[in-house]
C-alpha cells in the first residue's frame, strides 16, 4: 500500500497493530512449527513486531505487510536456529549446501499450524487460567496490557501468567504436534471450554463494575469462527459459535442507557443484533446437521429467545435434555427458570430445592435470585424478598447488586 505522503509514526503504528491482529496467530503458529517451541515462537514474533516498528515509519509500510512479516520472522527464526546449533559451522566443515531453511515456507500448512497452536495453548498440562491467557495471547494477538485490562488484574500478573504458562509447556516437554486421533475429541472439548470461558467472562464480568465486557465476547466469537474454519466437520464447534453469537446478539439490549442491566424478559428485542442472530442460526443449522451436542442444545435454547416471543415449554423441554446430558447444578437451575416461565413455578421451585445443598451453588447469587422469581410468581412475597436480598448480598457485580435490590424493594406488600 502506498500510504499518502509520509504518514505519522502514530498512523504507521496503527496500521502495524491492525496487520498484527490479522497475522500474529498465523505467524506464531508457523514459527512454532519451525522452532518446535511455542514460547520461542512467540518471542520471535515479538522481535518481528519490533523490527516492523523500527522500519515501517522510516521506510514506509510495505505493499504486502503480511508476507513482509512472514519473511522477516523466518529470517529471525533461521538465524536463531543456526546460532543455537552452530549449524552453519558444521555445514561449512562438511561442505554441505545450506538449503534446508531456504525451502521452508511459513505459508505452508497454515491451517494445521494454527490448529496445533490452538491445541498447544489449551494443553492439558496448563491450568485453566494459563490456557485462557495463552489462548488470548497467541491466538487473539492480545497484548499483556489488554489481557490484564480484560480480566481486571495487574499487568504484572497477566505477564506472569503467560511466562509461567510458556515455562510449563517447555518443562513438560510439550511438542508442537496434533493430538492423537484418540485424544482429539477431548482436546477439542478443552479448547471449546476455554473459548466459552473467555466469552462468559465478557458476557457477565463477574468482579467488574460493568455488566458486559463486549471486547472479550468479540474475541471469543472470533476464535470460535477461526476454529469453525479449521474444523468444519465438528458439530460442537459450530454449536459453540451459534451459542456465542445468539447470546451476544442480545448484548445491545442487556444494558439500559444509564448503564443498568436489563433482564431478558424486559429487553427491547428491536435492539437485538440481527446480523449475529442470522449468523448464529446458520451455525446452529450446521451444528444440528452434523449431530449436535451440549453446546448445540444450548444454542437451540438461545435460538428460542430470538423468536418474537419465547416458547418457554420448548425451552423447558430442551433444558430437560441438557440436564440429562450435562447434569450440572447450573443447568438444573436454568431448567427451574424455564419450567417456571412455562407456567409451573411450583415445579420450578421444587427443582431448586434440590440445589440448595449443592456446594458449588452455595455462594451463587443466581440461586436465590431464581428462587425469588419463582416465589414471587407463587405470590409468596415475603420469602421472595428474602431471597432477592440474599442474592444482592452474594453478587460481586455492582450493577447486578442494584438489580436484585430493586427487585426486593419492588415486591411491595408485607405478606
Amino acid at each position, binding site marked *: 500500500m502506498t500510504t499518502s505522503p509520509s504518514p505519522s509514526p502514530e498512523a504507521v503504528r496503527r496500521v502495524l497493530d491492525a496487520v498484527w491482529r*490479522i497475522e500474529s496467530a498465523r505467524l506464531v503458529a508457523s514459527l512454532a512449527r519451525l522452532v518446535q517451541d511455542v514460547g520461542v515462537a512467540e518471542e520471535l514474533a515479538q522481535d518481528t513486531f519490533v523490527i516492523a516498528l523500527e522500519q515501517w515509519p522510516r521506510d514506509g509500510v510495505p505493499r504486502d505487510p503480511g508476507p513482509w512479516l512472514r519473511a522477516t520472522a523466518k529470517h529471525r527464526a533461521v538465524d536463531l536456529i543456526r546460532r543455537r546449533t552452530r549449524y552453519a559451522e558444521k555445514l561449512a566443515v562438511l561442505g554441505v549446501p545450506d538449503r534446508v531453511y531456504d525451502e521452508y515456507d511459513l505459508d505452508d500448512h497454515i491451517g494445521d499450524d494454527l490448529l496445533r497452536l490452538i491445541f498447544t495453548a489449551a494443553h492439558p498440562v496448563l491450568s485453566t487460567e494459563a490456557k485462557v491467557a495463552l489462548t488470548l495471547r497467541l491466538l487473539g494477538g492480545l497484548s499483556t496490557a489488554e489481557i490484564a485490562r480484560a480480566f481486571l488484574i495487574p499487568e504484572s500478573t497477566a505477564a506472569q501468567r503467560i511466562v509461567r504458562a510458556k515455562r510449563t509447556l517447555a518443562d513438560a516437554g510439550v511438542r508442537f504436534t496434533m493430538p492423537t486421533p484418540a485424544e482429539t475429541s477431548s482436546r477439542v472439548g478443552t479448547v471449546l471450554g476455554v473459548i466459552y470461558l473467555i466469552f462468559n467472562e465478557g458476557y457477565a464480568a463477574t468482579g467488574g463494575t460493568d455488566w458486559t465486557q463486549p471486547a472479550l465476547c468479540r474475541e471469543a466469537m472470533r476464535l470460535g*469462527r477461526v476454529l469453525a474454519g479449521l474444523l468444519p466437520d465438528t458439530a460442537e464447534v459450530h454449536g459453540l459459535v451459534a451459542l456465542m453469537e445468539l447470546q451476544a446478539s442480545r448484548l445491545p439490549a442487556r444494558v439500559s442507557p444509564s*448503564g443498568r442491566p436489563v433482564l431478558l424478559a424486559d429487553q427491547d428485542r428491536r435492539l437485538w443484533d440481527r446480523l449475529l442472530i442470522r449468523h448464529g442460526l446458520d451455525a446452529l443449522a450446521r451444528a444440528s446437521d452434523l449431530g449436535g451436542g451440549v453446546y448445540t442444545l444450548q444454542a437451540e435454547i438461545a435460538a428460542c429467545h430470538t423468536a418474537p416471543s419465547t416458547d418457554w415449554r420448548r425451552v423447558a423441554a430442551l433444558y430437560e435434555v441438557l440436564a440429562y446430558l450435562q447434569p450440572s447444578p447450573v443447568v438444573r437451575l436454568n431448567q427451574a427458570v424455564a419450567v417456571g416461565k412455562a407456567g409451573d413455578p411450583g415445579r420450578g421451585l421444587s427443582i431448586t430445592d434440590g440445589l440448595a445443598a449443592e456446594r458449588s451453588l452455595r455462594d451463587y447469587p443466581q440461586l436465590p435470585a431464581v428462587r425469588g422469581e419463582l416465589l414471587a410468581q407463587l405470590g409468596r412475597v415475603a420469602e421472595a424478598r428474602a431471597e432477592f436480598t440474599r442474592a444482592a448480598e452474594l453478587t460481586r457485580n455492582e450493577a447486578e447488586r442494584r438489580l436484585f435490590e430493586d427487585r426486593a424493594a419492588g415486591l411491595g406488600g408485607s405478606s
Partner: protein
Amino acid sequence: MRYLTLLRAKQSTTPPPPELMAAIMALGEEATNSGSLLDTSGLAPSASGARVTLTGGELSAVDGPFAESKEVISYAIYDVRSKEEAVEWASRFLKVHQDLWPEWEGEVDVLKLFGPEDFPAAL
C-alpha cells in the same frame, strides 16, 4: 466494531479474469476463517434495480440504470478491532485486482456501522 465496505467501479464490458475471481474467493475465505468477514455479496448492475426518491415532498420510484460513472458492485461487513484493520482488508481486496486485472479501477468506501462503542453510556 463493524465496518461496511462498498466497492465502486465502472461496469466493465469484459468479464473479470478467472484468476481474479479465484483470488477474490480465496481472500474471502481467509477473511471469513480469520473471524473478520461477517457478510458479503456481489451486486447486479443498477439496471436491474431501482431508486426511490423523496424530494420536494414528492415520492418517486425510477428504474435503473443510474447515471453514475461508477456503480456499487459489491459490499462486505467486517467485524474488526480498528478502522485500520478494515482498511487493511479493503486494501488486500484492491491489491488482488491490481495484480490480476491491471486496467481495472475502483474504490472502496470503508464506513463504520454504529455499535456499542459509539454510545459510551451503554457500556
